[in-house]
């Protein structure tokens, strides 16, 4: 945790309290979580009470108060993906990474999450890694896709 990186993010938004969520989003994407020290720094610099930051950081799913992996894996288990075999994809990913939905592995490589629809049901079963969509998955393709991340 270095204050310089946090300060740079805050300064980019001219230290405006109204940019709080943007600042938090940038810290989240740089560190993959919101460390307590970072929140304290943001609170001090933007003049926003820590209670308010805490409320926002726990309200939105985009924020995490615990360290997340470098790659965020979202597996769709919505109706269309479900009938096309999302369960098998999920099992495969759990097997390969050793983590369940909501968890992060010890190397901080992957965080796994299930979602209810990614909006492209025709591609089901769908998995999204760091915002990139991988569609029409089989267990074999899933394995190949995961191998490309380190």
């Amino acid at each position, binding site marked *: 945790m270095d204050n310089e990186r946090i300060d740079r993010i805050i300064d980019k938004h001219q230290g405006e309290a109204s940019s709080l969520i943007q600042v938090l989003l940038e810290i989240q994407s740089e560190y993959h979580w919101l460390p307590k020290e970072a929140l304290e720094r943001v609170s001090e610099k933007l003049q926003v009470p*820590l209670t*308010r930051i805490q409320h926002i950081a*726990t309200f939105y799913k985009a924020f995490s108060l615990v360290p997340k992996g470098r790659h965020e894996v979202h597996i769709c288990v919505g109706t269309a993906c479900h009938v096309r075999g999302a369960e098998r994809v999920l099992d495969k990913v759990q097997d390969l990474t050793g983590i369940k939905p909501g968890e992060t592995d010890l190397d901080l490589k992957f965080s796994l999450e299930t979602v209810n629809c990614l909006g492209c049901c025709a591609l089901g079963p769908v998995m999204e890694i760091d915002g990139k969509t991988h569609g029409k998955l089989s267990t074999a393709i899933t394995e190949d896709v995961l191998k490309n991340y380190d």
Partner: protein
Amino acid sequence: MNEILLKIDGKEVKAREGMTVLEAASNAGVSIPTLCHHEKLMPFGGCRLCIVEAESGGWTKLVVSCVYPVEKNLIVRTRSEKVDRIRKTLLELLLAHAPNSPKLQDLAQEYGADKNRFEKEVSFCIHCGLCVRYCNEVKKLNAVGFVDRGIKKEISFIPEIASKECNNCKECFQLCPTSYLHAAFVLTEALAFPGNLQ
């Protein structure tokens, strides 16, 4: 300031523009039950218990009086079959969270609410936000805030601030309708700064 005339429970009431129906009613001596209202705090509209029927232009709607501004010729009914039924259900839902709160029990008696109607889900906090808002708006200390959302929403003290400020203040304790706040504070104290316990 413009004066506005409205009718509350058949009484002619004068109010200033920008006032809420709840304020106008209490000025006129009409009492409306509330849980999340506090005169020093901004209206919150959290508990919905101050719901009333408001008629204007021939239309009647249900509004939450603590956040509904007065308007000309508005006819307000603070007790009606419908209003009472809604308050009763609200109380029953709140009682599932805090079955032993004296404040809730008194109101339950008045409205005939059955505290066993809904399955108990004892969280004690009913999210009235009095402590959170009092700490923020009046004391400006921000020692306690909300975390999470929906059914997981709860109050949470910031230990670093609470350890410094709360023992000299504790003004929010008496505001809590369920005493859960006190429990949450003692728990924070025990976990984060037990050295202060004498």
